């Protein structure tokens, strides 16, 4: 085990709450569920911190845990409880009139990503937002690298289509 490994996990959890939440929001498209997802991730990470290997990417490890919880647990809960997806425009948007005025382009990007199917959205988030390598993203999502590549190609094709018809978003 080693206290150092423990400290790394604890420090990473504390420091990366915003990024974990952002990913959770991207997956769930629901503010309440995003917080639940982060909370569950914290719980599991602390429970399993002995399994974290020093020298490996702790953020990738946390994203793996979050992805797994989403895949196996909360997503099903969401379906079961009939939570549904809220209007994309109400979730992945930025609060505050000032920012909204100055970031129209970026808001549109958020909406476009939100409109992608979940698997593509998740992959785009990991590779293009969080800048994980294909290999890391594949590990985080527990899928082959080829799946990462095909999801990104599909996402780019879809976004290219939106770029040709910007009004449709």
């Amino acid at each position, binding site marked *: 085990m080693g206290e150092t490994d*423990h400290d790394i996990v604890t420090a990473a959890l504390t420091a990366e709450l915003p990024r974990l939440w952002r990913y959770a929001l*991207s997956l769930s498209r629901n503010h309440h569920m995003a917080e639940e997802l982060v*909370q569950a991730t914290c719980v599991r990470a602390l*429970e399993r911190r002995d399994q974290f290997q020093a020298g490996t990417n702790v953020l990738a490890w946390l994203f793996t845990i979050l992805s797994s919880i989403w895949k196996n647990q909360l997503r099903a809960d969401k379906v079961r409880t009939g939570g549904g997806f809220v209007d994309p425009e109400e979730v992945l948007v930025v609060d505050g009139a000032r920012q909204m005025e100055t970031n129209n382009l970026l808001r549109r990007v958020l909406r476009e990503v939100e409109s992608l199917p979940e698997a593509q959205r998740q992959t785009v988030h990991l590779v293009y937002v969080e800048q994980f390598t*294909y290999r890391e993203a594949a590990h985080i999502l527990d899928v082959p690298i080829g799946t990462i590549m095909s999801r990104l190609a599909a996402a*780019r094709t879809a976004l290219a289509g939106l770029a040709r018809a910007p009004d449709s978003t």
Partner: protein
Amino acid sequence: MPTTGQHMPTDEELVAYIDGELSLDARQAMDEALAASPELCARLEELHMGDRPFREAFDLLLDQAPVERMLARLTEQSTPVAVKPVEGPRTDWRAAGIAAMILLSVGLGFAVGWGAKPVEEKIVEIEKVVQVAPAKGWRQAVADYQALFITESLTPDQGDGAALALVSERLGLPLEKAAADVGGVSFRRATLLAFNGKELAQLAYLGDDGVPLAFCILRSANADAAPAFEVRNDLGIVHWVENGYGYMLIGKLPEQRLDTIAADLRERVRL
């Protein structure tokens, strides 16, 4: 067009090319294929149209993260009201945090120099413990607490018959025989604590050499386990499980001496 024998690159390969994920060899091959095929160039351009300032856009969301609330959910473990029956793991985690907090706040009363620290520092230290303690289990939580004890913590004698009776009653275990001079250490006081929603008895002793010791007991569903030695926080621990109770003796003493005292205590608490 690529020369005969070369396959036409797929969209996936083009995207990997854009993302810098191709090996050097594959990249060179792609450069050649693109140079030979306007059709492929058009396809590449199409995929480039799927580019977005993803990172910049999502960075806007970071400021919206309810960081304070999420951090508070980590620290709220210290209030029993906050413990809701959610998933099993979460309950364990929260309870561990509670235990750490309770143990810490009891221990802090004795810590030298604590009173002199600014409030902000105290809060930071408390948060540190609450965040670090989970998942370590009760022996680590007690070790964290015991590390705060000094000779003066148990001087003068703070023995209290009422406290001992309470602890014995709550644990359902007669502890009178253990509350005595045992192997060169003298009993000082009994304290009822809690860990993981379970009551935790702590009997404190002071050695002839001024070394404080604690003998802690809680109910356990684990199978009987023979005494074992370990070191946490530079403190020796002998722990065992017997007849539905978990026991640990902790203090800064050599393993052999702790073993001797533990063996004596073990006899004294046997039902």
